[in-house]
């Protein structure tokens, strides 16, 4: 949020300020520059890329990953890592689908789905925060456990049980914007405000920046870590329920590799992987870039095998520039 303000003030007619600011903060311009270049290239290749239909399409597609990225960002800001995101999305969607199948109660299904994610996240958070197990190991474990449980309780097949009203909601628009994107934006806004204006937000960065110092200054480090993972789990649960609104059911195979897209987005957003640094809106820009890139490659019909290459290259370039900048600072 702060960056946004400083950037807009950099647009003042005062040329020298703009130049010095750019010189000091050129790294922040890298991702927006890549983004802009990408928009121009894809538009040049196919004007349909920036058509209203496609912009709405991308907003719809990115909304689910954006919510996952909100949670992933907070965990990374505390110096953690959540590899279980995709699996938690799947198991939440599956459990929501079972609840709606058994009870026909949509509100109950949605809240159970989100709660499932929160519970999964808090288990991760307990092991990381209170037992001090490496988040990499804990969430690698829960990635496999979550996916396995999702397959076990569904016997491997998707459960398509949501009523048509819910899938209609999934494709509906609010003020011309896809409703799912509005939900994602609301989730982002709430978490951005929490990070900025509450003590918890401060603790998140403090724990990520220097856990020992945070503990010495009286912050309950374990609790903050557990809370961050719980938020991540809850966002995955919400993402699972939004995915259900798009597909009409719970697929045990859903959300495959979401965690990597979300973590990639946070890296593109310039957050430090060791924690303590990062801005939520920058992570959002990262995920939007990844989604718009994948979509653009699809629209212009690039051979599928090149997709991974392009996405990987952009990730490495963005992360390397970030490192270079830190070293020259």
């Amino acid at each position, binding site marked *: 949020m702060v960056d946004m303000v400083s950037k807009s003030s950099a647009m003042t007619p005062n040329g020298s300020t703009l130049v010095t600011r750019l010189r000091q903060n050129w790294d922040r311009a890298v991702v927006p520059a890549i983004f802009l270049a990408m928009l121009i290239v894809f538009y040049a290749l*196919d004007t*349909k890329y920036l*058509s209203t*239909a*496609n912009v709405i*399409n991308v907003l*719809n*597609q990115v909304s689910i990953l954006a919510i996952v990225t909100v949670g992933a960002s907070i965990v990374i800001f505390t110096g953690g890592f959540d590899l279980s995101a995709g699996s938690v999305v799947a198991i939440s969607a599956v459990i929501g689908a079972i609840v709606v199948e058994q009870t026909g109660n949509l509100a109950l299904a949605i809240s159970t789905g989100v709660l499932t994610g929160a519970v999964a996240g808090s288990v991760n958070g307990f092991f990381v925060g209170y037992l001090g197990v490496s988040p990499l190991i804990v969430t690698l474990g829960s990635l496999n456990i979550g*996916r396995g449980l999702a*397959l076990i309780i569904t*016997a*491997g*097949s*998707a459960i*398509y049980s949501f009523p048509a009203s819910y*899938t209609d909601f999934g*494709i509906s628009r609010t003020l011309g914007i896809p409703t799912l994107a509005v939900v994602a934006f609301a989730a982002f806004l709430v978490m951005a405000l929490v990070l900025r204006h509450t003590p918890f937000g401060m603790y998140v960065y403090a724990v990520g920046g220097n856990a020992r110092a945070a503990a010495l200054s009286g912050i309950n480090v374990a609790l903050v870590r557990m809370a961050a993972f719980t938020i991540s789990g809850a966002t995955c649960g919400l993402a699972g329920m939004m*995915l259900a609104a*798009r*597909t*009409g*059911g719970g*697929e*045990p*195979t*859903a*959300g*495959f590799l979401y965690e990597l897209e979300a973590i990639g987005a946070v890296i593109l957003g310039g957050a430090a992987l060791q924690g303590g640094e990062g801005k939520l809106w920058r992570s959002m820009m990262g995920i939007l870039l990844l989604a718009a890139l994948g*979509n653009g490659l*699809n*629209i*212009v*019909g690039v051979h*599928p*095998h090149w997709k991974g290459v392009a996405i990987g290259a952009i990730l490495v370039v963005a992360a390397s520039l970030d490192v270079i900048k830190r070293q020259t600072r």
Partner: protein
Amino acid sequence: MKKGKIVFATLVVAAAAIFALHLSLGDAQGQAKKFRVGVSLPEAQNPFYIALGKSITDTFRGQGIEATLLSANADVNQQVSNINDLVAAQVDAILMSPLDTEGPAPAVQRAHAAGIPIFFVARTLDDKYSHLWKTYVGFNYADLGAMKGKWVVDNLKPGNVAMLLGPAGALFAVDQAKGFRQVVEKAGFQVVWTQNSMQTREMGLKLSEDALVAHRDLVAIYASNDDLALGGSQAVRAAGLHGKVATLGTNGTPPALAAIHNGDMSATILLDPIQWGRLSAQIVIDYLVNKKEPKSLFTPLVAELVTEKNAFEKIPPPLREKLGVKPKS
């Protein structure tokens, strides 16, 4: 001190493992006449392979043959280790579905060299390895694709077609697509958009959204399986093109049959994994118990095209009410 403990623990575990191995070997020698068959399937999460695996193991166990079912989780490496494990366990035969046409070949070669007879079901290796297997129970996938192509040619006016190809490199996906493409292109249709992906409804939806932005004039979306096709039909509906873009899948899963009956999907190919499982396991049993060599390297199965006309009768009666389908008056 700590190091010593670790070494000790490792020794204990190793000793226990060797002891357990001796026990199991002793057991196998005690009942020399009981055959053991190893089953290696590519995916545990795909409903098709779940049904296939269950049907195979049920058939074996029903006739007093021990069956060990291993799944590779869509990872060639894992299938290679699974086969190596089965060779090490000295099973009497291996019934497997190779993940792709090349990757598992070295492991199959090792099994062959160890004198273990190998049978394929549903998928096979490249023809250059045909000396390695006794028989392959399955379809000519190009014929399946051609059946779908013929439906398109018979029912639609020539136009643009998009293809959701499924996993890159998998024989059933590659051959099926080839067969389809040949038939429709000969009749004046144009394949304007293709993409590889995992076979989920989520991916079918996302890719079809992109395809429909790039080519709103599509007349048909071909999909390598039903979940992709169902996602495609959802994208078609969301784009307001219901009834204008045909969607075609493969497998004949109940939700797809219901969608065809309701006019949301156009056609599918009914594959019956239970029948395949029974047939392939019986061939292995005949070979082991009755010393009967399979007649040829390829044991063909029959496939059936399902359209609106016959979809209802193909839905298992207990599922009809659950899926909310009623016979057409």
